[in-house]
């Protein structure tokens, strides 16, 4: 998953490790199609998370293969037919676990950094 996103201030390793979580978290809100995910990530991430469009699809396909998201072609009343991704029940569990894990991770890292700063 090299070059997964173009980030203004984050290393590629850091954003790569959080790619699954942020996409799953977005889809928990509502089903979205690929481009919509890109735009929403950029909006909610204060411009920091900017996936290159070409790198989004392999991530989505992998999440789908894992069974965490499912894809369905839908045609809105106004607009083109789009492939819409939604979270599966398995994906919801994974998202919760990853979210909890991420919070513990950031707290632990923050704690370490704070101690180092104090010294």
């Amino acid at each position, binding site marked *: 998953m090299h070059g997964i996103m173009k980030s203004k201030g984050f290393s590629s390793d850091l954003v790569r490790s959080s790619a699954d979580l942020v996409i799953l978290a977005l889809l928990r809100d509502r089903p979205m199609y690929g*481009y919509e995910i890109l735009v929403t990530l950029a909006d909610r991430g204060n411009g920091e998370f900017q996936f290159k469009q*070409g790198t989004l*699809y392999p991530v989505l396909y992998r999440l789908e*293969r*894992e*069974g965490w998201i499912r894809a369905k072609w839908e045609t809105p009343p106004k607009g*083109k037919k*789009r492939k819409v991704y939604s979270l599966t029940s398995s994906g919801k569990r994974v998202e919760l676990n990853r979210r909890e894990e991420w919070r513990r991770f950031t707290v632990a890292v923050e704690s370490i950094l704070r101690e180092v700063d104090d010294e």
Partner: protein
Amino acid sequence: MSRVGRERVEAFLRELEEAVGGAQDQREEISDEVRADLDEHMSRFEEEGCSEDEAVERALSEMGNPYELGYRMRSEVPPFSSGPVRVVRYLLSGGLIAWVLLLTWGLRGMGYGLSPVLFLLIWGMHLPVIALLWPMIVWKRNWMYSMSLGIVAAIAIVFLSFMGQKSELSYTLMVAEGPALEGPVDLDGVVQSSDGQPVEGALVSWTRGPERTWGLTGPDGGFSFIGLPDGELMVSVAVGELGPEWFTVEEGELSPSLVLSISQAEAAALVPDESDHLESDGSGGIEEKTVPLAAGFSLFVITMLFSMQQSSQRKGVLLALLAGFAVVEVPYQLEELTFRQDVAKVGEYLEGLEAEGRSLPVKEVLEQDLAALGLWNNKLRIPDWDYGLNMWWPRPLSDSCSIGYDFDDDRIWVQD
């Protein structure tokens, strides 16, 4: 969008499809998704003030190299197959499942009681073939990686099947002489392995109509039946869980040497033999070589397949395995339950006779009494007392086998 812009986008999508490969409908689905997103992306650039050419340029630029993108997609997406391949895949899968069910069904009929190990052995050995037919179950990055386990496992199945056809599986029934033309006859003989070693503990039985008896061969492989009725008899020899093989013995005619060949190689490789019969000839016995190997191999395959699968597919495969197990096991469990109930009813009836000090009634009365007991199976029968107090029930689910119960020894077994 201008013609030039559209052509650039379509050229990009063609190259992407080329890199993705696989079935046409799968390529087109990916292409349609990317096209729709590209169009929206370009529209947004134009809304931001870009010219149409610039919008096309920037949108395609963010997509990156189409070949690189296609290769990355291909490594993540389990490949679809073309229509004819899918039809063949479904047909082969259906045939394989039917074959495995038939095999499991037949082997299950040769034993009494739950046999999850047998089930695991058979299905574990055939799962790799399913994985070969459906590589998307274990899809990881490319065909070579995804298919390697299935190919290795399939080769191992062939290897094990050939092991089941070792020469030790042939036995010879030697008889001293054929039965006399008239009157009670004696039948003596010996069961030998193919290399001439006596086989101890082989089950030799004869039957004619409802009459039947059996004996186990001694250390020298010998057996003896005294005072058999004349006329045509069926003689069988069973070694451990293998066989039995049946022979027709007509008046005055019995081949002095009958070779019992076990043709069901897979059965031989899979069915555990709990006795030591085959080891008595010093050849090592098939179970010594193949059953641990098959069991270990099956568990390895099942573990590997489950570890390679995606989480969503594990549940499906597990459910399919459980369904297969239920299809085979539930009918046999019901059959054995009803047999046990019939045995209990007949046992109570016989104890009642004993308590009243009565002897067993004549055959006609006995049949009427059994009919009045409301047995599950009206084919249940009690042979004449002369041959022991036993009950026999031809298995409705596997008519080549009979469940037997010995009132004297309180023992249930399956005569296969």
